[in-house]
């Protein structure tokens, strides 16, 4: 399958601060790729590099087989972009504003714009200036989707949207992918990515720390367990077993909770020495997978680097 986005050792430094450190990543045609990471991890930096808003310090990015710098106009014609902090301004109403943006792309059928606006519940007669945060985000979504681009690059797309509209947006993403469009969306909200993404990349401090399908990320990760015993058990019987962590035994000594990563074999065999009355293992939400990658970080994501986002 054809790679729509190819990043090779992509590096971006801002003065002495590091934005991206050698990011290598492929996004294939027709997939929905979730790009996860906390604020300041380098998500927006990556996205702005793809659109030639900023230039890499080192490395290379190819989008739709084109060079962002050299073939920028041709590239951006085929891409729909929603910025992380989408802003628009002007005295006109939403309809006129969207028509202006459509004009920059050589025109988009009005029926297409109307259909998207209706779907998101966006009133096109409102003045741009008077829009609420959520409605402004809808304008951003409409302008990104309206020309049915081959590639959608969405930075924190559902910020400010209420749950109903968020669902409409997720449906739009799913439909776009079904129609062969590729979607690259960044987020720090796991649930929205989990719902639509085929693959997920997790970025931390400017480099990729995990890259897999949503299903694999879950199985390779931690699972929560809760075991109840007929009689009190010593916690020492389970401590130190491979892959077992966060063990907690209640005061009565009959209810054990913890997390298991990897094969649970050793844990199961240790359990077999006692009389077990109940066992519950829950598959983690992608949320927890995500946090697991960050809890292990030697340095927590720097809070002062949010401007890099």
């Amino acid at each position, binding site marked *: 399958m054809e790679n729509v986005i190819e990043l090779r050792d992509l590096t971006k430094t801002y003065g002495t601060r590091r934005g991206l450190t050698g990011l290598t990543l492929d996004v294939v045609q027709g997939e929905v790729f979730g790009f996860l990471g906390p604020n300041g991890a380098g998500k*927006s930096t990556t996205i*702005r590099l793809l*659109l*030639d*808003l*900023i*230039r890499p310090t080192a490395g290379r990015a190819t989008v739709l087989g084109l060079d962002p710098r050299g073939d*920028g*106009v*041709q590239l*951006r*014609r085929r*891409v729909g*972009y929603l*910025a992380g*902090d*989408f*802003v*628009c*301004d*002007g*005295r*006109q109403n939403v309809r006129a504003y969207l028509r*202006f*943006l459509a*004009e*920059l*792309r*050589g*025109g988009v059928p009005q029926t297409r714009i109307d259909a998207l606006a209706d779907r998101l519940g966006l009133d096109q007669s409102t003045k741009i200036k008077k829009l609420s945060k959520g409605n402004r985000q809808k304008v951003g979504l409409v*302008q990104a989707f309206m020309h049915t681009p081959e590639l959608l690059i969405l930075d924190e797309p559902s910020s400010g949207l209420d749950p109903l509209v968020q669902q409409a947006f997720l449906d739009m993403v799913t439909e776009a992918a079904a129609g062969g469009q590729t979607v690259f969306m960044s987020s720090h909200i796991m649930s929205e990515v989990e719902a639509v993404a085929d693959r997920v990349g997790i970025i931390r401090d400017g480099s990729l720390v995990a890259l897999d399908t949503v299903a694999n990320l879950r199985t390779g990760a931690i699972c929560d367990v809760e075991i109840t015993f007929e009689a009190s058990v010593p916690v020492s019987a389970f401590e130190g077993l491979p892959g077992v962590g966060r063990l907690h035994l209640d005061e009565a000594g009959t209810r054990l909770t913890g997390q298991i990563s990897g094969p649970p074999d050793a844990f199961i065999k240790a359990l077999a020495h006692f009389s077990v009355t109940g066992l519950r293992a829950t598959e983690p939400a992608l949320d927890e997978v995500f946090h697991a990658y960050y809890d292990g970080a030697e340095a927590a994501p720097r809070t002062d680097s949010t*401007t890099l986002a």
Partner: protein
Amino acid sequence: MSAAAILTKTLSDSRRGLIGWSVGTALVGMVYASTYPSQRENVDSIPEALRQSLNVDGTAAGYLQASVFGIIVPLLAMIYGVTMGARAIAGDEESGQLDLLLAHPITRTQLVLQRFGALVAGALGISALVWLAVLAVRGSAELTSVSPLQFLAQCFNLALLAITFGALAVGVGAAVGRRAVALVVVAIVGVLSYTASTFATQIGADWIAHLSPFHYYIGGEPLRNGFQWGDAAVLVIASAIFVAAGLARFNRRDINS
């Protein structure tokens, strides 16, 4: 992209300000010009040295050069050029709107040129209105010694002056991406060039005046001599250099987020 979507949008977004500013500038010009009959006698009381530096004499052209077209109207026209120029790139960059525009299939060069084009159109509009306003009082204010064509020549230079300083603001703004920096740089350059053109003769360094846009704006005395194509060419070339230099940097740098 349709040929001038950004240019049209820029003009349309700023139309209220532009109309207000043009009418205001034209009114100020008209009011000042109509005081000529009462001010004519006062000229004799101005000290000789000052009269020389301000280029004042009792004629209509001399009076207009010192007052209407000497200070107030060019200042107002320049403020328009500088405000629009600083807003063109740096203003939108600071508000975050540049990301959206530049994510469309347009080049940075196209964006700068269309924004500058809107500024040029606005400056020409203001000057045209000023021309019509002074023509309206030309008879009643006893300014008939200056022909309409000579007025047009001065108003044309007025537009070029606004465009030159506007171009500097566009250039600095595009190069650094900060509106305040553009405004401060242009304000300093403006004050220095006004001072240079006014006092160069007195400090015995005529050549300094030739560095000042004001010299090419009014030094050739269009109100007496009509169109000064050489001077106009200097202002046009200077504008082109300012925009091109800013653009060269703009095309290479990162857009601030």
